[in-house]
């Protein structure tokens, strides 16, 4: 058979990457007219653009429609390749493009790997990003330069795809770095806003800490296995006894930095300074799951030492508990969803810790859909309330925004109710945790986190939709926008269907032997949580005034306050003498302020020889040659 499925898949995916790469450089403004009926976006464009009424033409000076069209096509292509994989199960296709710097001891090659992980992730990321792009075309229309925004989103997606599809550590690092840098650009999108720039700084610095881990891993693997190829490293992980702890440390540090585990988490709520589509893209499918994805890719390395497993387990559990307990006391709707993202990441890392990377990846895929949908819902609420983000100013929105509110409820339910996307993976993870022999704390933490998940999800629902309206006048027409509704409904479909699809058609989820209590816990615990929430809401507010526990959860366990001060004091104490003696001491004299006069004097000296007399030139040349000869003869003899 000439056309093998692997051929189809590899060509499709290469084509997708290439088209995405090309679409970045596509700077042309999309143009279409009112008479063009078959284009669905026409209402939005006529709504948001300068229409001159004499000519019935609307000129769209925006690259948004182009990006949307590209992403739509690519999403369909990726789904096609995914279906090809469903039918005939393929192993990983390994494509080595060019041998780079071959005769150095370490050979570096552009090395792509198309395995099931990447194929599923590709389609999920493309569908989610397509919806987010559509939504952001609705959300960012008032922005001065929104075309650049769409382009940045596309570049971001491309970086993430490079990270997921590449097999050589250098490409992985490329995508990793690109993700960090693009997140910096996107968080500080409103550059005049001071909080935005400081949050962007925080994010990029924390990512640097994670990159230290990844670079450690790269360097040690180049030292150990003499290759930057991930498959080689994983296949030859027997002969690395001395350096294995450092390798694993690098990996865990990288993952913790990138996907905001406890200790390196503060940049993730800081992401919210960016526009809502950015938060949706970064939190759902691209940025924060990169660390977990790296752990999934390299999970074979974790096989040998058990202590690493339990460490990762405790880390993930702590993150889940921390984020969930913080989320129940926030008042910013985006912050609540961001912390729920963090707790879901903690669950993924827990799944890695108990040695079930497939479950972690499954949770990534299902989590992408409903988390993106939740963010888009909050974005639509925020946009309709004219940038009002505080929960206490929302209320009674279910009458104003029916689609949004239903999608919000669906997304909140997806974490705890059966037959929805989140439940498939989360239930599996909880089962695996309770069946694992590692640590009792893991299952405890994840169960508590699940309960708190129910609490904050229902808190959002309660505040947004059940209270009496307490907001300033919302735009009632915002839900007539096709981009908003299409995106929300598409993601809602994904939220309902993706869990069933993945678990039945793609992955073969393992089965565990657990007690009926542990099996029933994921069903029982949310109900308890919701009951507790309503109890506390009914007997609410005034009694919790001034309690330390409340302010502790509200201000994130005081982590940021305590740690910032300690870090700054420590680094000042450490670097005071060095900075005083070097940066503001003798090094300043020798270095920056010493080099300039020296080189100026030297260049003046060397220029004194340039008087345009040829005889002197020849004479001085001969003289200097003779000097050199004499010196060299003296040295050699």
């Amino acid at each position, binding site marked *: 058979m000439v056309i093998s499925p692997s051929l189809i898949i590899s060509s499709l995916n290469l084509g997708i990457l290439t088209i995405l790469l090309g679409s970045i450089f596509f700077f042309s403004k999309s143009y279409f007219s009112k008479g063009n009926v078959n284009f669905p976006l026409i209402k939005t464009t006529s709504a948001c653009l300068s229409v001159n009424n004499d000519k019935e033409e609307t000129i769209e000076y925006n690259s948004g429609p182009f990006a949307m069209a590209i992403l739509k096509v690519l999403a369909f292509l990726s789904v096609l390749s995914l279906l090809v994989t469903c039918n005939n199960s393929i192993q990983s296709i390994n494509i080595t493009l060019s041998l*780079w*710097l071959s005769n150095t001891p370490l050979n570096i090659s552009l090395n792509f790997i198309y395995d099931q992980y990447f194929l599923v992730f590709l389609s999920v990321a493309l569908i989610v990003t397509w919806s987010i792009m559509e939504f952001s075309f609705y959300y960012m229309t008032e922005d001065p330069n929104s075309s650049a925004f769409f382009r940045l989103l596309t570049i971001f997606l491309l970086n993430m795809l490079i990270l997921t599809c590449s097999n050589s550590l250098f490409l992985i690092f490329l995508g990793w770095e690109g993700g960090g840098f693009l997140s910096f650009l996107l968080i500080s999108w409103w550059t005049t806003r001071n909080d935005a720039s400081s949050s962007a700084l925080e994010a990029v610095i924390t990512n640097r800490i994670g990159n230290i881990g990844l670079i450690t891993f790269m360097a040690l693997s180049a030292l150990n296995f003499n290759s930057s190829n991930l498959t080689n490293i994983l296949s030859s992980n027997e002969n690395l006894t001395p350096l294995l702890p450092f390798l694993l440390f690098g990996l865990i540090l990288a993952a913790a930095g990138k996907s905001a585990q406890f200790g390196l988490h503060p940049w993730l709520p800081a992401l919210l300074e960016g526009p809502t589509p950015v938060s949706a893209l970064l939190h759902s499918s691209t940025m924060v799951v990169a660390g977990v994805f790296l752990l999934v890719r390299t999970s074979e390395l974790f096989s040998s030492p058990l202590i690493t497993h339990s460490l990762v387990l405790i880390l993930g559990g702590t993150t889940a508990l921390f984020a969930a307990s913080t989320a129940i006391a926030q008042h910013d709707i985006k912050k609540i969803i961001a912390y729920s993202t963090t707790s879901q990441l903690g669950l993924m890392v827990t799944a890695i810790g108990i040695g079930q990377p497939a479950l972690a990846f499954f949770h990534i895929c299902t989590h992408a859909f409903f988390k993106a949908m939740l963010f888009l819902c909050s974005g639509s609420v925020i946009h309709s309330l004219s940038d009002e983000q505080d929960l206490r100013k929302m209320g009674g929105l279910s009458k104003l925004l029916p689609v949004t509110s239903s999608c919000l409820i669906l997304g909140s339910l997806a974490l705890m109710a059966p037959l929805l996307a989140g439940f498939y993976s989360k239930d599996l993870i909880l089962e695996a945790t309770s069946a694992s022999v590692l640590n009792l704390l893991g299952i405890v933490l994840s169960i508590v986190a699940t309960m708190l998940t129910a609490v904050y999800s229902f808190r959002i629902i309660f505040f947004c939709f059940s209270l009496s309206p307490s907001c300033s006048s919302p735009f009632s027409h915002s839900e007539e926008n096709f981009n908003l509704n299409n995106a929300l409904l598409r993601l809602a479909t994904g939220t309902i269907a993706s869990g069933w699809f993945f678990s039945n058609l793609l992955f073969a989820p393992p089965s565990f032997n657990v007690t009926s209590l542990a099996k029933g816990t994921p069903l029982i615990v949310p109900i308890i949580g919701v009951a507790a929430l309503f109890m506390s809401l009914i007997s609410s507010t005034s009694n919790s005034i001034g309690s330390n526990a409340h302010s502790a959860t509200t201000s994130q366990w005081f982590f940021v306050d305590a740690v910032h001060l300690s870090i700054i004091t420590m680094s000042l104490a450490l670097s005071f003498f060095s900075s005083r003696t070097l940066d503001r001491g003798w090094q300043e004299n020798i270095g920056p302020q010493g080099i300039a006069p020296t080189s100026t004097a030297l260049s003046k*000296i060397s220029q004194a020889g*340039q008087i*345009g007399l040829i005889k002197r030139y*020849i004479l001085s*040349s001969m003289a200097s*040659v003779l000097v050199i000869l004499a010196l060299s003869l003296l*040295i050699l003899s």
Partner: protein
Amino acid sequence: MRQIVSTFLFVTVVSGTIIVVSSENWFIIWVGLELSTLALVPILCSGFSPRNVEADNKYFLVQASSAALLLNGALGQAWLTGSWSILDPVNEVTSICLSIALAFKIGLAPVHFWFPDVLQGLPFFQGLIIATWQKIAPLILMFYFSQLGFSYLLITPSLISVLIGGWGGLNQTQVRKILAFSSIGNMGWLVITSAYSFNAAIIMLVIYLIINTSLFLLFDHLKVSTLGHLNTISQLSPISVALVLLVMLSLGGLPPLTGFILKFTSLYFLVANNFIILSSIMIIGNLQDYFFYLRISFNTSLFLFPQHIISSASWRNSTIISPLAPKAWLSSVSTVLSTLAIPLTLPLYIIT
């Protein structure tokens, strides 16, 4: 000058270089060098402006003296070994004579004085010939020669020339002098690499010739001779702002550009031969080169000087060069090669 005469002279220059490169007889090599020099002299002073002819005289005298030294060395070689072949081992005196002569021809450090003056006195196109084509033959000889193994006579001058090229260009305001000093520095890089690997030196020569050609052609097209005039580029032809910027950075050796391979290959071989301290010295010299490359780039792209009315009015009519003109074709091709050709250099790098 008439078309046919200039064509004849160009063909003679090329044939002289080809004779030098393809022959292994010292006498024929001398004849070829003389041939290209004699043919180049009228080309250089075709403008007959006083500066022009002065530079021409300097060039002719330096080339004649270096040719005399070369012939002297060749005669001594032939007299001692009894054959004119360049493959014979050389003894001290003849090797000194020959290397000094070749250093004269390529303007290596202690004997580099003539080069900035000559290049400053000439228009850009003639300067292009001197700075690129006339360097091929002596450099190839030099490469052959450094294989014969007396490296101290080459390493010291090339180190000095890297440093001199850096310091000389630091407070220059003339673009051509800056280019001359940068080419002195690059000559140092080439020669010191040729002491360790012939192929690497050849590759570096090719890349350097391409980058230098694109630079000279760009400046010849834009007619900018001092740093102060550089800022008019952004009005004359906006596209060449990016070109000048990229080619300058490529000459400095910024990694994604082609010039990076030049420095990378050289440093690879130097460090492989435990040449670490001196190669760091060369890197320092190259940093000074980089300083004035960056100065040119800044003046080209980032500054917007207060200007007189002509250049400030001329942002409307940006100069259009027809793609059929050979100069435009050559400059575009060489610019693309000198900025984007790093994947093409990989096979070159692999054969070394």
